[in-house]
């Protein structure tokens, strides 16, 4: 049996957290948070002129009596929140020390758990060359165990490369709901990041999109030397190199450019870019960094 993604102590600490969306979200069930959509909850929000067809129960009779005009009282409606978690399950994620896939699943598990506990609708999907749902949508604490089991049993998809664009497009098409979307990936897609992010950019108008860029420390600072034949884990492509200082410098420049491009694209589309090196302790990322960034409170 695989190792548990979250231990009990950490789960206990997650109990006190809740996900925060800066977007107004709507749901079919009243959740534990207020949406920006004015509705029929008990918390007053505003008045608005009456129009035929409005529910007369919300008519403010005091104003009618005083001003002889019809106004309706508008209340903030409490809604459930959609939390979509997309985990990169391409082979490139099963690499690094600590490996990126475990790290990504722990992020998904933790955020999913928080969402389920807070009665949000949680949906988890895995993707490599295509998007495939692995959990939900579901909500409620009772679903947490199943979520963790699903994530623990999740493995990378062998023999398939990373194709972000079709996966994200499918997510954008099938979702259609507002809330929070969390994407955990290393972005190693030969077809480029620009195209891949485009569907998420469209989705970001209604959804808080958090992009977790997971990289192993060996990718951030390669410790290689000599004459090497580098073989790609996903497609077996080889690159023969002779490690030299200029080449390492070039790699560092390429990596910075790679990360900078993703970050800039995310920012311009109102998405949140979260750099997640796997050597940064997981609890530090979740409890410290994400709280500061406003995803959790």
């Amino acid at each position: 049996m695989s190792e548990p993604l979250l231990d009990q102590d950490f789960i206990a600490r997650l109990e006190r957290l809740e996900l925060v969306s800066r977007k107004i979200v709507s749901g079919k069930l009243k959740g534990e948070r207020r949406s920006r959509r004015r509705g029929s909850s008990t918390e007053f929000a505003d008045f608005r002129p009456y129009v035929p067809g409005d529910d007369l129960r919300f008519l403010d009779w005091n104003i009618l009596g005083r001003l002889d005009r019809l106004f309706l009282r508008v209340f903030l409606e409490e809604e459930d929140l959609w939390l979509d978690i997309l985990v990169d399950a391409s082979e490139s994620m099963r690499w690094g020390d600590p490996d990126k896939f475990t790290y990504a699943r722990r992020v998904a598990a933790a955020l999913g758990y928080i969402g389920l506990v807070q009665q949000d609708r949680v949906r988890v999907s895995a993707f490599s060359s295509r998007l495939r749902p692995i959990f939900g949508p579901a909500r409620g604490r009772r679903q947490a165990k199943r979520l963790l089991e699903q994530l623990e049993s999740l493995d990378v998809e062998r023999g398939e490369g990373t194709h972000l664009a079709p996966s994200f497009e499918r997510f954008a098409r099938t979702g259609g709901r507002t809330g929070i979307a969390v994407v955990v990936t290393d972005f190693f897609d030969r077809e480029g990041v620009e195209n891949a992010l485009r569907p998420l950019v469209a989705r970001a108008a209604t959804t808080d999109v958090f992009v977790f860029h997971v990289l192993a420390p060996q990718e951030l600072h390669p410790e290689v030397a000599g004459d090497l034949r580098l073989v790609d884990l996903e497609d077996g492509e080889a690159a023969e190199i002779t490690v030299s200082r200029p080449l390492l410098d070039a790699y560092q420049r390429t990596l910075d450019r790679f990360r900078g491009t993703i970050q800039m694209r995310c920012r311009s589309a109102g998405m949140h870019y979260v750099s997640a090196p796997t050597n940064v302790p997981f609890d530090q990322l979740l409890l410290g960094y994400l709280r500061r960034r406003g995803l959790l409170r």
Partner: protein
Amino acid sequence: MTPIWWLLAFIPALVLLYFLKLKREEVTISSTLLWRRSIEDLHVNAPFQRLRRSLLFWIQLLGLCLLIVAIWRPRCDSVAISGRDVILAIDVSASMKARANGATRFELARDEALALIDRVGRSDRLMLLAYAQEVETVQTLTADRALLLEALSRLSPRDLPTDFPAVVETLSQIARGLDSPDLWIIGDASHGGIEDISGEAERFQYRYVPVGESVANVGIVQADVRRTYGHEVRSELFARIASTFDEATQWTVRLLWEDRIADAREVSLDPKGREGVVFDVSSLKAGRVTLEIEAEDGFPLDDRVVLFIEDPQPIRVLIVGEENPWLDDVLRSSTEVRSARVAKESFPPAELEREILEANPPVVVFDRWLPETIPPAPAIFIGCRPNDGTASVDYAERDWPAIVDWDRLHPVLRDLAFESVRIRRGEVATGAGVGFHCLVDAADGCLVSAQTRPRPGGGTVAAIVLGFDILESNWPLGHFSFPLFFDNAISWLGQAETQRRSRWATGETLVASPRDIARSGVVVEFRDPAGDKRSAVVDSSGRALFGRLERAGIHELLVDGKVVDRFAANLLDASESNLEPRLLKASAEDGDAAGESGAPAGPVVAETSIRASRDLWPWFALAALALVLIEWYVYHRRTYI
């Protein structure tokens, strides 16, 4: 080396490259995406990246160009050949076997000859000659390179000395028969003789290509075994050792009898000096003796000499004529002489003719009596004279001829005195020319003489003629010179005739007289040191002629396939053992002198070797090989996707 061999030399280089192919460590990573981009970034930002991108192409292109140029075989013709007919003479004398820096002089000369053959135009003809003592035609004039190369490959150095004046004389005669040929001589110039060239040959011009460098050498330049007859018969081996070292040297000279060490001497030599050494070989039995110097120089041929010694044999003397007790007593008293008297009526004895035929005749003493036909044997004539001498001699009778002088240096008269010898009657001779040597002079003629007589079939035989009857003198009475004279005379005559030559020098014509050769139908052959057999030429006198000895070592004489005699041939040539290039030095000196007189003489020395001045293609081929190496390096060291 021909081009094909050069190209074949590339194969091991390529195989080596294959085995040296870079083995990269294989590392699996999450994605090569970033590395690919890094490499592209590196290439894009590298200086001259356009050039670098196609560096391999340029290297390959340049390598191909170099190979094409190499196949084109560029030449650097600093010395041009202009003649239509080219005569090329290669030195094959013994000194061409001298080795320095891993190659013999002959190998260097052959390379030069190959270069010259390559340089000659396709329509021109070339004649290939070899020379040492004589000039030998290896290949007549031909434009067929294959024939020339084949003839050149057959050529090998001999163990012969060089007779350069004779060679130049012959070459000049050959050249006269052609229309202004180019004449090239390739040799080591380690021989003199240019000053001895005279006549037409002195004006004869040729290009001399010297090969090899000066090599310091020590060698045995003379050696012989001689028996000394005197109070004690001894056999001694005389040898002379010469050095061309610039410093004083000391060498160990060993004497071996049948490969066992018999004696050894230390010999000290002055710079470029010579020294004699004598070994007493009297105690050695008949057999092969080897004299060798423990020297590791570049010319081993003269470090070893092989000789044959024989057991001492008493000299047989046949006395014929009147009774002579004095003479009989003297000859009987000598242990080294075995004398016998023959009656006049039974002379010549039957065995004498056979002994003469076998070149082993006794010394015949004609005492006041002569047969009708005097046999061709060494002889002493007492009171009578031969009538078949090679010199013209006149005789005149004298009473009381007074002895006035004698040749004290002649071996027969060594340590003798004739002051008190008185002769009542005698004949004095007056002769001249080759074949007559006066030993004892009277007042108006020669009283005792050494003469030569013709030998049937060629050659001469020695004789001593006493122009008086010893019984008509006081010589036998109390004069020590009387027994000593006959002892010396018999030794001298017997030694000259009966002692077999212990050594032969290469270049000489080997002549042998085996016992059974006179029989008809026998097969007489010589086998040289290399094992090659050659039929002997048997002349009318029954001597077997081998011809010129070209190889040092032991030659065997075979009669009907059975070895009957052995002969040792050695270089023994001081000039050939001197490996310094003296010829060109002498030529330069002569050239200076000639310059003053304005007469052309001597060789035109090629300033550089034919080989060095001609072929450039090996350098292009090497450059192409270097480029292949660079291309390999660049290809495997580069970073690519």
